[in-house]
C-alpha cells in the first residue's frame, strides 16, 4: 500500500461495518453488565440453545413477557449473536474491499475474539462457573476497544497521509495513552474480579482487589487528566485528538462518580462517615433499579474509557510516532511477527 493508492477511492463498507460493530458491542456490554448485576447469568440453563429452542427461534412473546432475568440473559445472547454476524460481515467487507494485509488479519482477529467470547459465555452457563464469567467479563471490553481500533483503522482519515511530526511531546503522548490503556484494562479486570469474586475466596482477596482498584483509579485519574491536557492544549495538541481527549476527561469524572455511587449503593458509606446523619441513616436497597443501573453504568463507562484511550493512543501514534499510516501498519505487522 502506497500513499498514492490511499488517495484512490476507498470502499466505505469496512468502515461502516466497523462502526456498526462498535455500536452493537457497546449495548452488548451494557446488557452483559446487567446480567451480572441482576445475577441473571443462569436464567437460561442451556447453551447454545435457549430452553431447548434454537436461540433465534425462541418465541418472541415468551422472551418479551417472561421473567426479567430471562429477558436480560436471552437479550444478551441475541445481541452477542448480532455482534458475531456483524463481525462476519466486516471480515467479508475487509477481504473484498481493503487490500491492506494487516487489516485483513485484524478483521480475522476480531472474528476469532468474538467467537472466543461467545464460547466463553456458553461455557460459563454449561459449567455454571463464576471464574469463567469473570474471563467473559474481561474479554468484552477488550473486544469493544478492538472494534473501536477497527473503526479508526478503516476510516478515511487514517488512510490519508498524516502530516507526521517528530515531536518528543507527541511521542510521550502516544506512549502515555498506550500505558494508560494497559492500566485501564488492568483496572477493568480487577473490577471484574470484584464483581465475580468466587464465594469461597478468602476475604483478603476481595480486600486486596478493592484497594488495588481504588489506588489504580487514582493513578488513572491523574494520568488521563495529564493526557487530556496534553492532547488538548499542550505542544502535542492536535484537532484530531481533542474529541477523544474531551470525552476521556468527561468519562473519567463520570466514572469516579459512578464508582463511588456503586460502592455506596452496594456497601453503604464507610463506617468512619457515620458521624454524618446522611451516612448513619443510609440503608442499602438490594436489587433496586438505581443500584443495578449504577453498577452497570460503571461497567459501561470503564469500557468506554478503555476504548477512548485506545483511540487516543492510535491517533497520537499516527501523528507523532510514525511517518505514515502505512508505516504504522508495517510496524504493527513486524511487531506481531516478533511476538
Amino acid at each position, binding site marked *: 500500500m502506497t500513499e498514492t493508492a490511499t488517495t484512490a477511492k476507498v470502499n466505505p463498507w469496512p468502515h461502516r461495518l466497523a462502526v456498526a460493530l462498535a455500536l452493537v458491542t457497546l449495548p452488548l456490554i451494557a446488557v452483559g453488565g446487567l446480567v451480572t448485576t441482576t*445475577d441473571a*447469568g*443462569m*436464567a437460561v*440453563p442451556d447453551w447454545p440453545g435457549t*430452553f431447548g429452542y434454537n436461540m433465534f427461534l425462541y418465541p418472541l412473546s415468551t422472551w418479551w413477557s*417472561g*421473567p*426479567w*432475568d*430471562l429477558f436480560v440473559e436471552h437479550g444478551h445472547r441475541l445481541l452477542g449473536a448480532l455482534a458475531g454476524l456483524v463481525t462476519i460481515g466486516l471480515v467479508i467487507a475487509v477481504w473484498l474491499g481493503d487490500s491492506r*494485509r494487516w487489516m485483513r*488479519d485484524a478483521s480475522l*482477529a476480531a472474528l*476469532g475474539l468474538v*467467537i*472466543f467470547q461467545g*464460547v*466463553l459465555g456458553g*461455557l460459563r452457563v454449561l*459449567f*455454571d*462457573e*463464576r*471464574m*469463567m464469567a469473570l*474471563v467473559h467479563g474481561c474479554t468484552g471490553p477488550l473486544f469493544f476497544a478492538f472494534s473501536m481500533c477497527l473503526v479508526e483503522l478503516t476510516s478515511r482519515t487514517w488512510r490519508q497521509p498524516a502530516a507526521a511530526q517528530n515531536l518528543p511531546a507527541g511521542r510521550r503522548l502516544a506512549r502515555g495513552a498506550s500505558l494508560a490503556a494497559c492500566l485501564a484494562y488492568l483496572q477493568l479486570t480487577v473490577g471484574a474480579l470484584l464483581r465475580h*469474586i*468466587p*464465594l*469461597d*475466596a*478468602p*476475604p*483478603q*482477596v*476481595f*480486600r486486596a482487589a478493592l484497594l488495588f482498584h481504588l489506588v489504580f483509579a487514582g493513578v488513572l485519574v491523574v494520568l488521563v487528566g495529564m493526557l487530556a491536557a496534553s492532547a488538548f492544549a499542550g505542544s502535542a495538541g492536535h484537532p484530531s485528538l481533542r474529541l477523544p481527549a474531551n470525552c476521556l476527561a468527561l468519562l473519567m469524572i463520570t466514572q469516579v462518580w459512578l464508582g463511588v455511587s456503586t460502592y455506596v449503593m*452496594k*456497601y*453503604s*458509606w*464507610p*463506617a468512619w462517615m*457515620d*458521624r454524618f*446523619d446522611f*451516612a*448513619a*441513616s*443510609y*440503608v*442499602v*436497597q*438490594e*436489587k*433496586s433499579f438505581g443500584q443495578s443501573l449504577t453498577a452497570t453504568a460503571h461497567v459501561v463507562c470503564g469500557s468506554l474509557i478503555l476504548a477512548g484511550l485506545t483511540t487516543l493512543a492510535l491517533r497520537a501514534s499516527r501523528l507523532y510516532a510514525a511517518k505514515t499510516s502505512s508505516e504504522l501498519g508495517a510496524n504493527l*505487522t513486524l511487531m*506481531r*511477527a516478533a511476538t
Partner: protein
Amino acid sequence: MSVCRNWRHCLAALLAAAFAGLAGCGSPDAKFVEYRTYARLSEKAAGYENGFTHLQRQDVNNVLAALYGTPDAPSLPALANVDVTKLLDISKLKLAAGSVGSDGKGRPRGLYREHCAHCHGITGDGNGPTASFLNPYPRDYRAGLFKFKSTPIGYRPLHEDLKKIVIDGIPGTAMPSFRLLPDQEIEALVEYVKYLAIRGETERQFYNGLKDDISESDFLSHADPAVAAKELADGNDGKAPAQKAIDEKVAETDKQRLEAIKGYTETVFQKWLEAAEFMTQDTVKVTNRNDAMRVLREELVAAGSNEKKLTDEMVLAESQQRGRKLFYGPIGNCFTCHGPTALGDGQLGDYDGWTVELIGKTPKKEDIKDYIKHGMPEPRNIRPRNLRHGVYRGGMRPLDLYWRVRNGIEGTPMPGNDKLKPQEIWHLVNYVQSLPYEQISNPYEAVPENRRERN
C-alpha cells in the same frame, strides 16, 4: 506470507489451548467450612496439646452432613423428641440453597448465594469474600446469636425478628434492605439463615462433646476399638479381652454416641422453639406506650396538676424528663457507654461477644494471632450508638427501642434491664427519641456545647 501464516497458527493454537483449559474447568460443589475458631477454643479448653485430629474433625463434618446435608442439598435431621418442621420448612430451604439460577418461569433458586453469601459466607460464618472490609463485620450465624430481636438475651430470635431485619436492612451498615424481593423469597432467606444458625450451633455442641466426653483419640460418632480394648483390659487386670467382647463394647459405645448426637441436636432445636414459647407469656408482653402515657397523666393529676390544662405535650415532656433521670441514674446507667452527651463516646474499648468468646475482654496478642490464623476476623472495638442521630440500627419504631432497653442487644455490652418497669422503659424511650431534637444535637453547635458539657 509465512509470518502471517505463523501468526494465524499461533492464534488458533492459543484459542484451542484456552478452550481445552476451560473445558477442564467446572464449578466444584460448594462446601460448608469447618468451625475452626470454635474447634480451637474447645481444644484449648480440653487441654489437648495437639488439638483434635484431622479424623476427629472429619468425623464431625460427616455427622453434620448426615444431619443437615450440603449447601446444594440441605436436609433436616429426624429427631424423636422435637418436631423440626415447626421450625424449618425444607421446601423453603431448597429455594434458598444451591447455585444461583431460575427456571423458565422465573422461579428462583440459590437465593442465599445470590443475596447473602458474599458477606455472610456459604456456611453463615460471617466470613464471605467481602467480609474483611465491612464495618461492622457481617454476622456469624453459627453461635445462634442475633443482635436485634424481641427476645431477651440468652434466647434465640423469633422468625419475625430475623424477617424484620431482612426486610428493613440495618442503617449505616452494608446489610441491605430486601424490601423489593417477593415475600416468598424473603421467607426462604430467613429459613435458610435459621438453618445455618442451627447447623452451626449443632457443630458447637459436637465440639463441646469432643471436649467434655471423649478422649483425645476418640470420635464423636463411633468408638475406637483400640480404646475399647484398652478400657476392657484395664477393667480386667490388664488381660487382653476377647474380640467378641471388644465388638460388643464398640457396638454399645456407638449406640450411646448416636444417642448423644441426637441429644446435642435436639438441644439446639429446643432452644429455638423455647424462644417462641417464652414470648407468648404474659410477663414479657409489651405495654402500650399510650397506656404508659395515660398512667403518667393520672399520676400527674393525682399530684395536683390541672387535668384540663394538662396537654399531651406536657405529659410527654414530663415523661422525657423522667427518662433523662433514668438515663443518667444508677438503674438506667446509659451514660456510662453512650457518653454523658449521648454521642456514643462513653466506653470505646469493648469487643463484641463473638470476639470476646474467643479472646476474652482483655486479649493477649498471641491469642489474637492464634484465632486469626483459625479464621477469626481482626478484632475491632464495638462502639456504643450515637443517640443524637436518631438512627437506631435495630429499628426506628418506639417498640424497637423498647425491646433494646428491656432485652439488651445480644452479643454486645448493651445489657437487658429487668429492673426497669415497663412504664419507666417508655420514659427512657421518649427521652432517647427526644435527643436528636435537642439543640446540642445540631452539628453546628454540637462540638462546643458537648465540650462544655463534658468539661
